[in-house]
């Protein structure tokens, strides 16, 4: 077998552009997913049954169907209903954030439930509303505890974002496919793609470790 190192060098700038796009999708999806997940996670603990039920349906639906199918639903099926083509970037981010939101919701729910219930009682007994207590007392404590699982979710999202290549969105995986179509350098290019993903996920996991350590020192518990 001929290993064409030069092909890797020549393709690298293009792959890096794709990697930049992957980082973008991931960053957007994780941020939106965090927001969705926080509200849905709290909603799952609501005393109002309808809010609780809606949140549960959302989480169950998303976790019970493949992300790939969700992407197809949003990119191919949704336009039929709204009667308008959806931009691949918007479709990619929408699908990924809705997907991520469901997993993040479960992380938040677990984090909130792990906080001693005396904390809520103390807040309420001081006259604070449920929302005020959640915001000032429960969530800040829960957030510290869920940094590790959130980090995992972040990494998973980065890898799963490769699925949006199926709608022709040119992130890292799609770039790789396109280069291979031109050069037939399957081995070299997939190796490079894998390597770039590895570097990116490794960086995130180091970042999460750092945050975790920082908050541990700060954790007055």
């Amino acid at each position, binding site marked *: 077998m001929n290993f064409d190192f030069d092909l890797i060098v020549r393709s690298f700038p293009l792959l890096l552009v794709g990697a930049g796009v992957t980082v973008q999708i991931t960053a957007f999806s994780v941020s939106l997913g965090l927001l969705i997940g926080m509200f849905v996670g709290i909603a799952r603990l609501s005393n109002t049954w309808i809010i609780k039920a809606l949140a549960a349906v959302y989480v169950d639906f998303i976790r019970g169907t493949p992300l790939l199918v969700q992407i197809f639903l949003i990119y191919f099926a949704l336009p039929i209903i709204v009667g308008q083509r959806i931009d691949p970037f918007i479709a990619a981010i929408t699908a990924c954030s809705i997907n991520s939101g469901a997993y993040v919701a479960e992380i938040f729910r677990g984090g909130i439930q792990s906080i*001693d219930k*005396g*904390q809520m*009682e*103390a*807040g*309420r*007994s*001081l*006259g*604070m*509303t449920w929302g*005020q207590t959640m915001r*000032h*007392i429960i969530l*800040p*404590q829960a957030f*510290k505890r869920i940094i590790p699982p959130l980090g995992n979710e972040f990494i998973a999202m980065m890898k799963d974002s490769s699925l949006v290549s199926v709608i022709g969105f040119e992130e890292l995986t799609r770039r790789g496919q396109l280069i291979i179509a031109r050069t037939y350098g399957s081995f070299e290019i997939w190796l490079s793609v894998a390597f770039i993903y590895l570097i990116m996920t490794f960086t995130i996991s180091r970042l999460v470790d750092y945050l975790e350590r920082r908050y541990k020192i700060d*954790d*007055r*518990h």
Partner: protein
Amino acid sequence: MIDIKNVHKHFGKLHVLKGINAHIAEKEVVVIIGPSGSGKSTLLRCINYLEEPTEGEIVVDGIPLTNQANINKVREEVGMVFQRFNLFPHKSVLENIILAPMTVRKTPKSEAIKIAQDLLVKVGLADKEHAYPEQLSGGQQQRVAIARALAMKPKIMLFDEPTSALDPEMVKEVLDVMKSLAHEGMTMVIVTHEMGFAREVGDRVLFMDEGRLVEEGSPEEIFTHAKEERTKSFLSKIL
């Protein structure tokens, strides 16, 4: 000040409070005693609606505990001290105390800090304002918890076994703070096993057993001339 009318509480099949009637007057210090499982903590927690009575009515300072707005109103006027302190571990002592006045009463920060510092002097912890709860002993934490409740300038203070989680040598420092509060004329309802304290500070003692208010009277009456057999037998075991 507090009117408790025919209050029942069920936890599932468990009937914890079986028709409690009581009245607590302004500036009165009422101590609730009784064996564990007698429902005394539950009754206390019903007063600020941390537990919702299954049946019956509670009126605090003229406000019936009927809807959420009223409940929040009452909680602003009723401070509570818990057995396990329940300080906010991610906030400093000062932040623990100023949070509720700032978020609920919209007290400006500088003023809230001033109130907090005065309260810390009062509970003997002026030098601890920047400490975090985990850096304090149990007794110190409980005194901070008392200061936190007082920062809302409540009209009534509820104490749920405030010294039960403390090492013996720290009990006195907490009781001393409570004593000085009582002398200042605070209306207080205290669930405790500290009989010496009940005797010294209480205006009235309620004895509960199996979800019922068995007997009530002055400390003198309860501790030396109890009428009910169950009261006598309980006291004989602990005194």
